[in-house]
C-alpha cells in the first residue's frame, strides 16, 4: 500500500480492504482517508517511528506501507531563551510529551502559552505550523519564534496570511489563511500548534487539523470548554487535555503602575465649521429615522439603510468625514509636538486606532510605525530595534499586547477617540513600566473637545448602554 497526500486527504493506493478509517472513493477507485489519520494509519501498519522510540513492529500485523505522504523535515532546535520555564510550564510540557505529543494545554491568559509552544517545537524536533486567530497574534508568534530559533533555521520563520505567503519549516498563519491553504501544505508539517484552540470547532476551521498529517499536535487555550459543547471534537482532532492550570492561581501577578493624564484639544475654526456641517447631515438623517444608535441593532439598521438609500449613504459619508476631522485635529499634533519635546529622552509609544493617522505621525515626526499593514518581518525588526534602544519612539495603530514580543515603554500617548478606547487604554497601560530611576510611567489621552469623541467617551463613563 502506498500512502500519498492528495489535496488535503490521504490517497491509499492498493490498500487492503481492512484498512482502518478509510472510505472507498469510486471516483478514483482507491481507498481514501482524512489526512489527520496519518499517524494512526502508520501505527496500524506497524510503520510508525517516534523520534525517540523504536518502531513497534507487530509481525503478524505488519502491512507493507510506502510513505509517500510525509514531506516535512526533522529539525534540531534549541530555543534561545533568557528565562527559565516556570514550574507549571515545565509540568505542562512533560504532560504533553507523556501523551505522545498530542493534546491540549489549558493555561490562563498571560501565563506564557507562547513560551510553552517554543519548548514543544524544540522537543518535537520537526517542522511546525502555528495557527492563530488574529493577525496580531500571528505577528507576536512570529517575533517570538524569530527570537528563539531565528539563528538556527536555514530560512526565516514563514508567514502565511496578512498579505504574506512564505511557507518555511516553521510557519505562522491565521485560522482564515490556514483554512484556505491547508490542502496545499498539510503534508509539510510534523507538529501543528493551535493557539486559542477553542475557535477550532467550526465546520470550516476544523478542516485545518483534518487536512494536515502532523503526527504531533498541541492545542493552547485559556477557555477550553465551549457553550455549544463542541470542544468534544478537539479530542479527536488535537488530542486529550493533558494539562490544566486554574485562573486564580496565576492572576494578578504581573501588573504595572502608571498614571493617566487626560488632555483635550479644540478644533480650529475651519475644522469646527466643517465638522458641524457634516455632523448635522448625519444627525438629521438619524433623527428623522429614529434609529436607536446606542443599541447594536439600531446601528446595524442604520448601516443597512445606507446600502440602498442614497441619503443614508450620504449620512454615513458625513459621519465618517466628521470622525476623521475629530480624529486628526490639527491641535492634537501640536499637543503631541509638546509631549515629544518633553519626553524625548524617554521610551514612548504613540497609539492611534487609525492607520492613516499613524502614518501621518510617522512622516511628520519621523518615527517608526506599526499598523496592520506592516509586514510581519518588518514589524519584528522595528520591535527588536525598539527593544535594544535603537529606536526610542514608536507609533502604532495596533494594540500591542504585553507578552514576550513587546518591550516596555515608560510613556504611552493615545491619540484617538475610538469607541473601545477604554479597552485600548487598559491594554496599552499594561506595557508601561516605570523608568530605572523610578519615575512613574505615564499614559496620556488626547481627545478633541465637543465632538463625537467626547460624546462617546462621556456616554460610556455614564454607563449608558442599552
Amino acid at each position, binding site marked *: 500500500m502506498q500512502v500519498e497526500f*492528495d*489535496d*488535503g*486527504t490521504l*490517497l491509499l493506493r492498493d490498500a487492503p480492504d481492512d484498512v482502518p478509517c478509510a*472510505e472507498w*472513493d*469510486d*471516483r*478514483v*477507485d482507491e481507498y*481514501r482517508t*482524512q489526512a489527520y489519520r496519518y499517524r494512526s494509519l502508520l501505527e496500524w501498519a506497524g510503520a510508525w517511528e517516534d523520534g525517540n522510540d523504536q518502531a513497534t513492529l507487530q509481525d503478524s500485523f505488519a502491512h507493507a506501507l510506502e510513505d509517500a505522504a510525509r514531506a516535512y523535515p526533522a529539525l534540531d532546535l534549541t530555543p534561545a531563551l533568557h528565562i527559565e520555564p516556570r514550574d507549571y510550564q515545565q509540568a505542562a510540557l512533560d504532560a504533553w510529551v507523556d501523551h505522545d505529543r498530542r493534546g491540549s494545554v489549558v493555561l490562563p491568559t498571560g501565563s506564557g502559552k507562547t513560551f510553552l509552544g517554543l519548548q514543544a517545537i524544540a522537543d518535537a524536533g520537526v517542522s511546525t505550523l502555528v495557527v492563530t486567530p488574529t493577525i496580531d497574534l500571528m505577528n507576536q508568534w512570529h517575533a517570538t519564534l524569530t527570537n528563539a530559533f531565528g539563528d538556527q533555521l536555514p530560512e526565516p520563520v514563514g508567514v502565511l496570511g496578512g*498579505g504574506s505567503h512564505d511557507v518555511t519549516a516553521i510557519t505562522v498563519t491565521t485560522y482564515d489563511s490556514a483554512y484556505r491553504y491547508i*490542502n496545499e501544505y498539510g503534508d509539510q508539517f510534523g507538529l501543528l500548534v493551535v493557539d486559542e484552540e477553542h475557535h477550532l470547532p*467550526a*465546520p*470550516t476551521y476544523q*478542516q485545518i487539523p*483534518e*487536512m494536515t498529517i502532523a503526527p504531533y499536535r498541541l492545542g493552547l487555550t485559556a477557555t477550553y470548554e465551549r457553550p455549544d459543547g463542541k470542544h468534544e471534537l478537539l479530542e479527536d482532532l488535537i488530542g486529550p487535555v493533558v494539562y490544566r492550570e486554574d485562573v486564580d492561581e496565576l492572576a494578578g501577578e504581573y501588573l504595572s503602575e502608571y498614571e493617566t493624564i487626560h488632555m483635550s484639544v479644540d478644533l480650529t475654526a475651519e475644522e469646527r465649521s466643517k465638522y458641524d456641517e457634516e455632523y448635522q447631515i448625519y444627525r438629521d438623517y438619524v433623527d428623522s429615522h429614529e434609529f436607536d444608535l446606542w443599541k447594536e441593532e439600531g446601528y446595524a439598521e442604520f448601516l443597512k439603510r*445606507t*446600502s*440602498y438609500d*442614497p441619503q443614508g*449613504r*450620504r449620512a454615513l*459619508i458625513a459621519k465618517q468625514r466628521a470622525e476623521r476631522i475629530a480624529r486628526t485635529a490639527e491641535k492634537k*499634533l*501640536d499637543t503631541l*509636538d509638546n509631549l*515629544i*519635546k518633553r519626553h*524625548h529622552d524617554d521610551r514612548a509609544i504613540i497609539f492611534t486606532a487609525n492607520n*492613516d493617522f499613524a*502614518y501621518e505621525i*510617522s*512622516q*511628520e*515626526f*519621523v*518615527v*517608526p510605525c506599526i499598523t496592520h*499593514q506592516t509586514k510581519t518581518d*518588518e514589524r519584528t525588526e522595528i520591535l527588536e530595534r525598539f527593544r535594544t534602544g*535603537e*529606536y*526610542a*519612539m514608536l507609533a502604532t495603530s495596533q494594540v500591542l499586547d504585553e507578552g514576550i514580543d513587546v518591550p516596555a515603554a515608560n510613556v504611552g500617548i493615545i491619540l484617538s477617540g475610538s469607541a473601545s478606547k477604554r479597552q485600548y487604554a487598559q491594554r496599552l497601560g499594561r506595557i508601561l513600566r516605570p523608568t530605572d530611576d523610578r519615575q512613574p510611567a505615564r499614559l496620556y489621552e488626547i481627545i478633541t473637545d465637543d465632538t463625537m469623541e467626547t460624546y462617546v467617551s462621556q456616554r460610556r463613563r455614564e454607563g449608558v448602554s442599552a
Partner: protein
Amino acid sequence: MLTANLARSRTTDKEIRPLFIDPTDGRYRETAGELIQLFESHLDEPKGDLEDAIDELTVADTDYKIVQGLAKLLKDECEFEVVASVNPHDIRQRLFEKANARYPIVRQPTLGEDTQKLEVYSTVADELGISLEECYRGMYADLEDNKRLVRIGTRTADQYATGGDSSTSTTALTGSSDEEYEHTDLTADWLLTRYNLALAQAVFYDAIEMWIRVWDHFGTVFSYVKLFGLMHRIYPIDANGERVASTDQAAGYEAVLDGPASLFSKSQKYGIRMANFLPALPLCDRWEMTAEILVDETTDETRAFTLDHTENLDSHYSAGNKFDSDVERTLAQKWERSNTEWELVREDDIFDLGAEVMIPDFAIEHPDGRRVILEIVGFWTPEYLESKLAKIRKVEADNFVLAVSERLDCASEEFGRTADRVLWFKTGIHVYDVVDLAETVAVSSEPPSGSE
C-alpha cells in the same frame, strides 16, 4: 469575483437565486459608465485615492452594494504597483535611524538643538541620491493605499486559478507583465454582464456539490474542471438528459463535481473552486447546472441553486482552439473534401479515467449507427507522450482506434489493449486509411434491443 459581503441573493423555502440585474436598465448603464470613467481617470494615481472616490460615490437610485460590487470587479482587472526609485523600506529605515540620533524632531522648534523633519529628509535624500520629494513620497510608497494604478486589463482564467483574489503585485518596483493581460475595452456592457455572472459565482461560496449537464464543448468544460482542481463522477446522457449505458449512445454528459474531502463530510471547501469553474458553462451552447448550497451552518440546511443556458450568462473564459494541432485540422479539412458516408465529429466522447478524463480527438460515425473513436498521437515531448500513453492504456472501449506518428519513439505494445488498432502515419493521415480501420472495428451505437 465579489467578496461574500457583496453577494446579493434571495433564499426561499425552495431555492436560492442571485438578484440578477437587467444590463439594459438605464440607471445601471449610467452607474457602470461612471465607474469605468472614474477608474480611467485614476490611472497612475494612488489606489487609496481611487478607493476614497469610490467610497464617496453616490449614484442616484443604484443600491450601493451594486456600486461596490461593480467597483470590485473593475479592481480585479487592475494592476497596482509600487512606484518608487529606491526600495521604500530602505528609505524609511535610514530616516528612522537618522532621526533617532537627533530627537526630538518637532514642528515648532523652541530650543536651539531642536531638529526639524526637513533636515532629516534632505540628509537621507542626499545619501540616496534622490530628490526630497522622492524621499518623502517614497518612504511609504509600498503601502497598499499608495500603490499606483498602472494598468486596467482583463485577466485570464489561469490567473483566476493561480492568483487567488490578489489583484495587486507586491514586489514589482519596475517591470511589466503585459503578456498576462488581454487588453479588452472595458464597457458598461462588459461590466454589467460580468456582474451578473459574479452574482451567480458568489452563491457558490457556500456550495457543497455541483451537478452539471452539457451537450457540447466537452473538452473545454473538462479542462476547466481540471484547472480548478475539482473531482468528478461522469455519466453519459441522451438528448433529454436521461442517463444511457455507454458513451457511444451519449448526446451529452452529466457530471457531479466536488473535491477529495467531500467523501468524508459535506464540505464548503470547494465552493470557491466551483465558483471559479462556473464561467466555463456559458461557453457551451446547451447546459444545465444544479448546486447544493449550505444556507445554515448550524442546522446543515441546504437549498438548490439552478441555472441553464437560457439565463443569458456570458463567459469571460476562453473556449480554446478548435483543433489542438495541424494534423487534426488537416484531417478535418481532407474529410470535408472526401467522398465517404462516414462522418467526422469533433470531441464527442469522454472516457472517465478516475482522477481525470480523456476526451479523444474525434468520433467517426456511419449513418447506419456504427461508430469508432479516434485519437491522434502526434508530435509530442517524451514526458507528454508518457502521460498520454498512460491515459490510452486505461481506455477499455473496443471501437477505440489510434493514429500514431511514425516519428514518435514508441512501439505498438505501449498502447495496451488498443495495440492492434493503431494506424501509423508519416506526415498526414489519409482519410481512407481511417475509414478502412473504422469498417473493421466499428460498433453499433443503437441501444441493445430487447432480444438476445
